[in-house]
């Protein structure tokens, strides 16, 4: 049981990090859009 909990925990951490990465990308994009819109 404990190995299964560890493995599922790893999956949760991995996908949480990917979701956080997406949020980070989201924060980068609008700033860049405003700054470069006229170039």
């Amino acid at each position, binding site marked *: 049981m404990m190995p299964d909990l560890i493995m599922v925990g790893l999956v949760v951490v991995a996908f949480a990090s990917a979701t956080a990465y997406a949020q980070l990308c989201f924060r*980068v994009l609008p700033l860049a859009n405003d700054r*470069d819109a006229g170039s």
Partner: protein
Amino acid sequence: MTSVGWLQITLFAAMIGLLTRPLGGYLARAYAGERTVLRPVLGPLETAIYRLAGIKPEAEQSWLQYTICFLLFHALAVVVLYGQLRLQSVLPLNPQDFAGVAPDLALNTAVSFVTNTSWQSYGGETTLSYLSQMSGITVHSFLSAASGMAVAIALIRGFARRRASTIGNFWVDLTRGTLYVLLPICVIAAILLLAEGVPQTLAQAAAATTLEGGAQAIARGPVASQEAIKLLSGDGGGFFNANSAHPFENPTPLTNLLEMVLIFLLGAGLTNCFGRMVGSERQGWALLAVMAILFALGVAGLYAAEAAGNPALAALQADGMAGTPAGNMEGKEVRFGIVASALFADLSTASSDGAVNSMHDSFMPLSGAILLANMMVGEVIVGGPGSGLYGMLLFCIVAVFLAGLMIGRTPEYVGKKMRTAEVKMTILALIAVPLVTLGLAAIACVVEPGLAGLGNPGPHGYSEILYAYTSAAATNGSAFAGLSANSPFYNLTLALGMFAGRFFVIVPVLAIAGSVAAQPVVPQSAGSLPTDRTLFVFFLLGVIVIVGGLTYLPALALGPVAEQLQLFHAAH
């Protein structure tokens, strides 16, 4: 090398060339929800799925919503497949009474098939029940391919739309890709494979008595249905450990040709789909031309190296008969020979499929370098369904960015400006795979659990490790063999490689889709770089080769290049 060999390669290339345009048109119509030949039959089923799942097909999503749905779906898929593999001993359709899969192997396998990699640290016929093969492996081959195509379609929509805040609906794209594209082609392919002798049964392994009187269990199962999607999906996970080298997976030269066409079919078709959706088929043909040149270079190199054989054996006059070199037949099926093995290996690594009809570990070192290079350039030589196209579009952004730097102009691609945000996301996507590949391979080369899996010393052993992580992070799934990868260390680190290689590329790709969708279309002017001309084809080609070379050449020099030099040294 023989003229018949070149004829086989030409026949294959011609078939892909002929199928690209009609398939591209079909894909564009299917994803747009327009009328296709299959809509009257499958339309009601599509509607029923939406009703059952509570999906509103007309409700489109922003790129972030699309990404979150994509990630949630895959997280759930990993957990479900993991649970199924762990519990297979108490689930039905397990006539061989296989035990539940070990935790680290189950995690590796679940991540592998959900990410469209199909790295297999197990032998299918000795590990998985029929239920695990059918509802685990096969189902996720469909879903992972459909989700990869969904990402590519979302990115194309980004380029095609003007001032849009949405890039489609992930659930709709997933459903349409599965229903209208993958299922129909797989049904036809499975029937053709059945007709050629591929088994499809739920009966347990056949018992046979050998000539010496020993007992032998001949594994069989629902192979044809898995084989079709294994190749079409770019997944490559075989029912048997020997994959397409096994006569039950790939019994005849005809099935071999069919399998090769299936591997490249969707990747090629999507380039035309891209061209149609952005309003210029020439844009799609330009991408396919780059892929075709890289493919031709790879297959020519492989065929030449394998036909020439081992120089050390030739020096001993132990290669071939009566002064005629037999080439390198080690690890190859006699019924396929050198050319069909070299072509299949090139396709398998150029796409993200990873199926094998010969053992890559036994190829000449130079061939091994080509197989590695195919994966290292990001599997953009047609690539997997969706992943090949969005990988190639990332390189297009880099190419127009570099061209823009040369002339001091904001780069544009198919009418969209490539600004700081898009270039940043492109670099994030392109750097993820080499970072994981080289980082994990370096760790495996110096820690005890990594070295414990080696089957060979020296440069070849290093190549085995490098190949494993390259294959995982590129979501290819083919193995160099020789490496004992079914250990907690390899199962977990390869799972990490597959995860990062898939999701840390797709997140920035979808971000680019959202960013370019929000832009207006810039009209073409005299200062615009034409991206559908020969000049751009060769410029893009140069960018791919230079970026790939700068990133990976030192790693290749330590493995296959050093090994090839050792062979030359032994021959003289």
